[in-house]
């Protein structure tokens, strides 16, 4: 896979235009623009505090930027709340896993199906007819598509809080997938994982991007340069609020060719 930042080909799924976001006098984002193309993996790199997570939070609606436009599939979504954006087909994982520790793996993933539940309170409270049928369909989806893909069969009935960190990350990704998103925001999916877990996670990301079943566009924030260069179609560099580059040559100059793979030894 080659990294190329030439803008042009492919439908634009998400577009940020001149985004400004300040906390008091600190300008976390100062005029960021970028385009995310459908079907690609876009990575954002940059030093700690560069504003990567703030940008993710703006995209998914946790923060609302003071200035600028966020559009998704050509529609302006600045005013939408996170759950409304989720309904449009956007889901995310967090840098520090945000799972419900006391709930089982299955229940955590089921929660991700919430927006696809159609039956109402009345039928839900007696759990009969439509709801029961729907539940079974969702369970089938979770088992066949998500648990199988994430290889978490052995822990499906375990409370997530008891699992090792690497598995919690997988469960979180599983929950994000349960939404069947078109755009998946992954905030440091590899942080804190060992080499084997990194390889697994990288494989899952490629699977959900390439498999016909999923074809999900990914927006990835990551520090592991080796993985970023291997996975991404495009890379953006963010430096304290400014988008400084978007091109492989500059990244090499910025990091040095050797350092590229030296981040994880």
């Amino acid at each position, binding site marked *: 896979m080659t990294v190329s930042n030439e803008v042009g080909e492919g439908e634009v799924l998400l577009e940020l235009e001149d985004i400004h976001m300040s906390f008091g006098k600190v300008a976390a984002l100062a005029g960021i623009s970028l385009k995310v193309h459908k079907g690609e993996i876009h990575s954002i790199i940059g030093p700690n505090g560069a504003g990567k997570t703030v940008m993710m939070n703006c995209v998914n609606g946790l923060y609302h930027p003071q200035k600028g436009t966020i559009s998704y599939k050509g529609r302006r979504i600045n005013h939408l709340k996170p759950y409304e954006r989720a309904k449009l087909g956007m889901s995310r994982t967090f840098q520090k896993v945000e799972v419900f520790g006391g709930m089982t793996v299955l229940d955590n993933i089921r929660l991700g199906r919430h927006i696809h539940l159609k039956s109402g309170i009345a039928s839900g409270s007696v759990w009969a007819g439509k709801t029961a049928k729907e539940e079974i369909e969702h*369970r*089938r989806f979770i*088992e*066949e598509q998500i*648990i*199988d*893909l994430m*290889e978490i*069969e*052995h822990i*499906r009935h375990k409370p997530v809080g008891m699992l090792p960190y690497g598995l919690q990350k997988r469960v979180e990704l599983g929950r994000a997938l349960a939404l069947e998103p078109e755009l998946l925001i992954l905030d440091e999916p590899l942080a804190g994982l*060992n*080499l*084997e877990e990194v*390889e697994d996670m990288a*494989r899952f990301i490629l*699977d959900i991007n*390439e*498999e016909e079943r999923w074809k999900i566009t990914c927006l990835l924030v990551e520090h592991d340069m080796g993985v970023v260069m291997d996975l991404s179609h495009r890379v953006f560099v963010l430096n304290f609020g400014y988008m400084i580059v978007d091109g492989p040559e500059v990244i090499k100059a910025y990091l040095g060719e050797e350092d590229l793979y030296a981040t994880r*030894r």
Partner: protein
Amino acid sequence: MQHEGSVRQNEIEITEDLTIPKLFYQQARKYGKDRVAMREKEFGIWLPITWQDYLENVKYIALGLISLGLEDGDKVAMIGDNRPEGLWAEIATLCARGIGVWLFRDCLIDEVRYIIDHSDTKFLFGEGQEEVDKAISIFNECPKLQKIIWDDPKGMRNYDEDYLISLKEVQQLGRELEKEQPDLFEALINKGQGEEIALLFYTSGTTALPKGALLSHHNMLTMGQHLMAVDPCLDTDDYVSYLPFAWIGEQMMSISCGLQIGYTLNFPEEPETAQENIREIGPHVMFAPPRMYEQMTRTVQVKYLDSTWIKRKFYEFSTYVGYKVANLKFGKKPVPWYWKALEWLATISVQKKLKDHLGLSRVRNAYTGGAAMGPDHFRFFHALGVNLKQIYGQTEVAGISVVHRNGDIKFDTVGHPIPGTEVKIAEDGEILTRSPSVFLGYYKNPEATEKTLIDGWLYSGDKGFIDDDGHLVVFDRTKDVFTLKDGKPFAPQYLETRLKFSPYIRDSWVIGDKKDYISAVLCIDYSVVGKWADEKKLNYTSYQELSQMPEVYDLVEKQILQANKDLPDVAKVVKFINLYKELDADDDELTRTRKLRRAFVEKRYEDIVAALYSDNDAVHIDTIIKYEDGRQAHIKTDLQIRKVAN
């Protein structure tokens, strides 16, 4: 107890003519679509596969192989987890008159290359991407290999090598061939003869490169019949197939016995879920190497340490009663009524639940074999009320030759020969076996065959004797037997298994042949000792650091004192060392079935051995170790040598 099924072992007559495919065809037509031949857990649900489905899948794979160019006697290798497709591939190979070869799933590339090349394999069945990757990397070095067949599509989207073909495509080829020649499948099956070679099985080999044992249909079928004559099974029984098919014990249970009895084979969802799936099925019969039972013991012991006071007391009571009753039974003494009453109490309070958690609640016969099992572990299961039996066998007799009988169990023996089997002891103490199941010879290795097969007797290379009750006692591998300081022979495995009864010790290696005293190299169990250290608020960052802590040495010393108890002074462990890593099959230190490769470790750790027999109290290690994920680490450390305060 009432059973719907019928005892069937006498109904099948094994003639010279009978082959595995013929028996399979007969059974599949008899049971048809009304009976479940196997189940596999998929997507959280147990999916049944009837004998009809089983037959059809096998038929089309077999015809597919023919259409790919399989000829009589061609080798077909299989690698992957236990799953229906693996078994279909094997039976289909036999139906198409090929010879089956199984590889362990965790074989490294070199082992795969050696076996594929040595066996002249023509087709290789791999499960998914991992196996296909292995096969692709050796494809050019194995000129006889023509096609690689895979069945799990996950991750396979970017492969376009023309020698790759999916199982579905193979079956499609089979369907097309059937249209042209509808009688071909039956004709192929009818051609077979009992003495033809069915399987080429590579022995794990504690000493040298694996050797390929040739087993005929007749070998396999008589094996199943003779075992089932001792402990009959029913066609309504369940069996869980989760141990590698590359291990002869699994072949014996799944094919030799499974086809004759017609019991249902159950395949776990993933290797990691096996224990949970066993519990769901509750099998009636079980055969596993000692390490599986050791693992169960360890689980129980660790849970015991973790549980509350009242639960511990109940457990202590029930094990006390259990041991007492088991010892009476071992001694063939009557159990007095008050012990029976207490036993009942122990059963309802603890043992029933415990057995359920281990998946042993319905087990009629549990067998262990393949390596020595310590008497402590053995007693543990009998105290729990599990009818655990030792067996003795090897690949070269297609499974087993000796087994315990109900009510006649001695924990230091392996029992009596099964029907049709003669066992005698040579003058030098070597165990010799003769039976219809003794193999045909080693593939492409006439020298080894000559040494092993003499006048129809199989020379096992194991030392043993027959005791006053006619039970066979297996001492140890001939070359492993120690001579102690007082000139007596000593089996190191005996002491090693005693040491392993401690939940804190995962592996042990005892040294002391022709030396002044016995010493031991131990590998702590990382998770159990790690947990113990956490509770003691001891900080550590790695296995190596944990293993060298003085507190851990104290803990291990206590375990050794326990193992040393009741042993004569010359047989006690005097010095020990905690190794900085666990022993691993990938480093050639263990075989794939986790047997210690003594000669190899002695050479590899010669510095440690030398230090144990010097006056030093530490040994310096400067080495490079390779992790499973490919990383390398330079280890520079001093290993402490501790003298046990006997």
